[in-house]
């Protein structure tokens, strides 16, 4: 142990820290925490590269691992946290008197709170005017997760979404309590080659 210089000691300490970070990344559940841990992991490896006299690799690791990767992760995770609902009903199911007190809104809020998602309502005129036959295509092609519409003949509110999303099962369960709310799930159309 005599010739263990300060640099060697730092290298060993950083390597042990690296293992601890790796285990921490695997154990944590919160996505935000994991992103920060990944960034720190990348910075520690960059320092190890410098200690091992490979500055080229260190520059690349810092630029990509600590700047670009966290940005991309943050964007994709923040998108995932949104649950986008297209409101075609245009009546007081969701909004009454310009505030969010409609029954539909309460149901959707309970649903998104259960999954820690952010409810994002939109009523884009162009998308709303598309006929109800196009609903499945709308769900598939855009990032709309749920379409709320009002079936005049039967007097029920129809919530349509993709069957491949596991969240829809929970919504279906929650909507059973309401007589006039119906949940329809689109099956993935995939018999093409």
């Amino acid at each position, binding site marked *: 142990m005599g010739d263990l210089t300060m640099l060697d000691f730092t290298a060993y300490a950083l390597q042990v820290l690296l293992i601890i970070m790796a285990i921490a990344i695997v154990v944590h559940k919160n996505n935000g925490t994991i992103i920060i841990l990944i960034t720190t992991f990348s910075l520690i490896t960059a320092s190890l590269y410098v200690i091992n006299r490979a500055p080229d690799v260190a520059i690349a690791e810092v630029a990509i691992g600590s700047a670009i990767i966290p940005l991309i992760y943050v964007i994709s995770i923040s998108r995932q946290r949104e649950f986008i609902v297209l409101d075609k009903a245009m009546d007081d199911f969701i909004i009454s008197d310009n505030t969010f007190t409609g029954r539909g809104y309460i149901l959707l809020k309970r649903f998104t709170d259960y999954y820690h998602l952010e409810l994002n309502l939109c009523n884009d005129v162009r998308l709303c005017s598309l006929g109800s036959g196009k609903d499945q295509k709308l769900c598939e092609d855009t990032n709309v997760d749920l379409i709320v519409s009002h079936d005049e003949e039967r007097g029920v509110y129809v919530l349509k979404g993709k069957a491949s999303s596991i969240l829809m099962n929970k919504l279906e369960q929650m909507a059973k309590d309401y007589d006039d709310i119906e949940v329809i799930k689109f099956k993935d159309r*995939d018999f093409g080659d």
Partner: protein
Amino acid sequence: MAFFSVLLIIIPVFTALVIYLYKHSAVKYLTFIAQLAMTILAVLYYREFSDQWASTLIVFGDWDLRIGISLINDEISMSFIFLTLFSFWMVLIYTFDTRQSNRTFLFFLMFLQGVFLGLLQTYDLFNMFVFLELTTILVTILIAFKKSGDSFRAAVYYILLNASGVLVFLIGVIIMYNVFGTINVGVIGEAIDSVGEATSVRFAYVLMMAGIAVKSALFPVFSWLPKAHGVAQSAISALLSGLIVKGGLYMFIRINQMFSGANLESGEFFFYVGAATAVVGVLFAVSQKDIKQILAYHTVSQIGIVMMGLSSPDFDTFYGGLLHIFNHALFKSLLFLGAGVIIKAYRTKYVSDMRGVFKTMPAVSIFMIVGMLSITGAPLFNGFISKTIIKYSIEDSTLKSWILFGVNIGTATSFIKMSQIFFGPRRMTLRLYAPFDRIALMGFAFACVILGNFYIPISDGFFGVELSYISVFNFDAFFDYFVALAIGFLIYYFIIKKDYRPIRMIREYKPSFQSANFVFIMFVVVMSVYFVLIP
């Protein structure tokens, strides 16, 4: 002339870029022109160098052999090159659509061809890693090309598992570089006699083989293959099952050749890995209902048979395995492309819903029957030749012969089940506009029949291997085949058709990604115990 090998890599890459950039619709004909140019170059190259393979060595930059990257060719790589060119010809014809051009699809396809041809010719370990990585990424994108939920899941599963495998391969390469100071395959092969006993060299072998096992879908790390090949587009499944997975087997051959001086005694170990792959593959295949999943699991099992041949140090057995690689590529692509046509017409992918194919699409049915006869090993078709070679070479050991026999029976059972689609009344089907897909099927079917009958001159001329001890027209061959078919039929009728609970459980068994990783680590540990600790 030696630089033709570089052209074989550069031409498809260039073509891919040009196709992407020029928006004119006539650009899709460029693929055929490029393909024709490459075929001509390959033939000229073969004729020039067919008795002096050592002079095909090119070192880029004219640097010292131990410093620069080199390319080399020999009979094995040339046969793979011809197989690649043929497969891509057929896939391009199959997907050719005169009304529109899917430029992005052709871009990825041609780039894949260039990269794969590079993988076949390279003589440098890190270059192999780069090409393996590039193949992985391209295949992921092609699997996810349909953009459906299942395709994305399969593509993510594929890339995660394969990227870890390739990473483990890289660690092996790093250890080799530290030990030998160079990563040229030829130089290492010569220098390995002196250090073959060292722990680091053996551990590097274990790591490299683990990576290659993932790419070749060997037991126990094959779980990505049924998912990926079952949900991709049929043309892509044909290419993957027929060609890309054989890239992993090609690397197995090369790395084994490199380590041949180290006396690793890997033959028995990989034989049993192959046997396990074959048995597990066929067991899963028999229980499936989706036609593409059946074919995908059969790919796993046929790769097991190939491995039973390739692993042996005896050249004749090795040649049987090698020949089965080509045979399997031909008949499996044929089956996948045919399945694609049937799925598009019938709008379902379950075998039990498809009936009356023979009356509805007679040409496709005949080609599919050719494929089915080939895969079950009927005489007069190419599967028979390679399976017989392997059968002869392991006939000394009763255990091995019984394993092979069992796998053959399983294959027969499964294809008897699939042949039910031919019976029944004609159906009204949607005739989609795909004018050339029959031509692609015909190409593969012809190749199967030709290889099944003219195997003696082909093997002699190309590889110099004497195969006259295998005769197609004797009574034993046909008798054995019909016995296997009969037993297969009995098993199908009494067991599979009833869909007993165990079969349903096998079908619904879906290993999680966590268990796939666990099994991968266990595989590396078992190999290190066998190769590093015990000797």
